[in-house]
Structure formats: C-alpha cells, structure tokens
C-alpha cells in the first residue's frame, strides 16, 4: 500500500545557468501533488488541503470550496457526469454551478 507522499510527481525548474530575473526562481526541485478536485499541481508544502471524503490532497481553491460547500466533487466524478450526459445525449451538466469557476 502506497502513501500519498509516495504518489507525488516531480518538478524541476533550473535557472542556475541563466541570469537572475524578477519572478524567476533560480532553482526549484520539489515534489508535486495532484489536486483531486481539479488536477492542479500543488508543489509540496508544510500545509496542504485535504479532503477526507476522497482521501486526497486539494489545492487551496478547492480546499476552500470543499470547506464552504461541504461537498466532495473529484474531477473524476465531473468527467463521469460529462461522459454520462454525452453518451445519453442529454444536456451537459452545469458543472461547477456551486463551485465558483473551478470547472464551469
């Protein structure tokens, strides 16, 4: 059984051989986590959003929304609803109607 930490991605931004520029980090090598609700990548940090319903990490935006609405809405579920509507020929669901603009 793998832990969530083991399921981290890898991000490298290496500007050590480039001249310094404002807004450009000289060097960054970090693990990244995938937000379960929108797939945004979250660089590893001490405090990270978490959804106890889908047992997965969340980005800050989705963590706030999950807290406010109390609803767990993984992007896999969103895609499933889209596929169902597409297959049945019914109108596409108003995704994210109560989720700000995460997936409208």
């Amino acid at each position, binding site marked *: 059984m793998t832990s969530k930490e083991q399921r981290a991605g890898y991000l490298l931004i290496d500007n050590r051989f*480039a001249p310094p520029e404002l807004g450009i980090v000289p060097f960054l090598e970090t693990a990244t986590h995938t937000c379960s609700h929108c797939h945004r990548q979250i660089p590893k940090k001490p405090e990270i959003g978490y959804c106890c319903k889908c047992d997965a990490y969340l980005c800050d935006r989705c963590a706030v929304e999950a807290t406010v609405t109390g609803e767990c809405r993984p992007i896999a579920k969103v895609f499933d609803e889209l596929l169902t509507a597409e297959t049945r020929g019914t109108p596409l669901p108003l995704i994210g109607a109560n989720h700000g603009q995460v997936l409208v």
Partner: protein
Amino acid sequence: MAKFSFKHSSITFTAVADTTNYTDAGYMALQGGTTTQYTKISEVYQGGLATASSPTFSVLSRDSTIAATITGLSTGASAAPLDVNTAALAAPVVAFIASTTKPQRAATLGLLSLGYNAFGGIVRWVAYPGEEIAMLGTAANTGEISLSAYTGGTPGISNCHLVFETT
C-alpha cells in the same frame, strides 16, 4: 491506452493574458479527438534555447475557449507515439499550435506554473503514474489543455514536449 509525445523543436511562446486569443505558433495545445476521448498528460518539458536573458512565464492551463478549424502541425512540431507498435487511432488527440478560431487560456483553471529563463533554463514536470492531469472530450474548460506564456517577461525560444496518454 497509447502514449504520445507532442514536441516542438524551437518555439517562441507569445505572452498573452488569460481569456485572450492565443497567437498562432505562440503556444502548444492538445484537444480531444472525440467528445468522449480521455487523455492524461504525464510530462512537460521546456529547454531554453535563447541567446539572451528571456524570462518566460509559462503556464499549463485548461482553455476556456477552445480552438476550431485547427491547422496541421508545421515544421519543427510533431505528435508521435512513443512506441512504434502503437496502432493508429481512428480519432487521435489533436496537437496543434495554430487555428482559425484561437483558443484562450482559462482565467481560473491554471494547472501548473512553469516560469523560467529561456536563456539556459530547464523545466521538467513528471506525474506519478495515476496522478496525471486529465482532460475529457472537446468541450471548453475540460477538453483542451495548452502550454503558453503569460503576460510579462520576454519569452525566448525553447524546445518543449508534452507526453500524453489517450484512450
């Protein structure tokens, strides 16, 4: 499932704001081949080729306006399967850098910030298997993902690739 690489040997991104038309040959994008096609992006790479300092504020993002009447890839750009034995798909994912109706980056659906200096900088992101960035179909906000440069800086020439897997 088949894995593909969408690469561009020498692309100079054009810096644009969110919800603004992209400029042809100034971005790289993937759009589903059918309304039910599921695609996962597992790797993004950028290697700077500029000869002067070129801060490039690259962003991987979903698109809120998707491209239409897409132009085929031109010299330097290609999308090919990683495995030579991959069977040809009836409706492959559409990789493109130009179109008649321009795509627009969504304002709130950014996935990955990859700002770097194209004067020698390198960027690489790799997903853990099962934790890839997914897109579905061809609809706005869910069916198209692009790698582009956000406003600011002076984007420089770079070579890039996106590795994706599709069903």
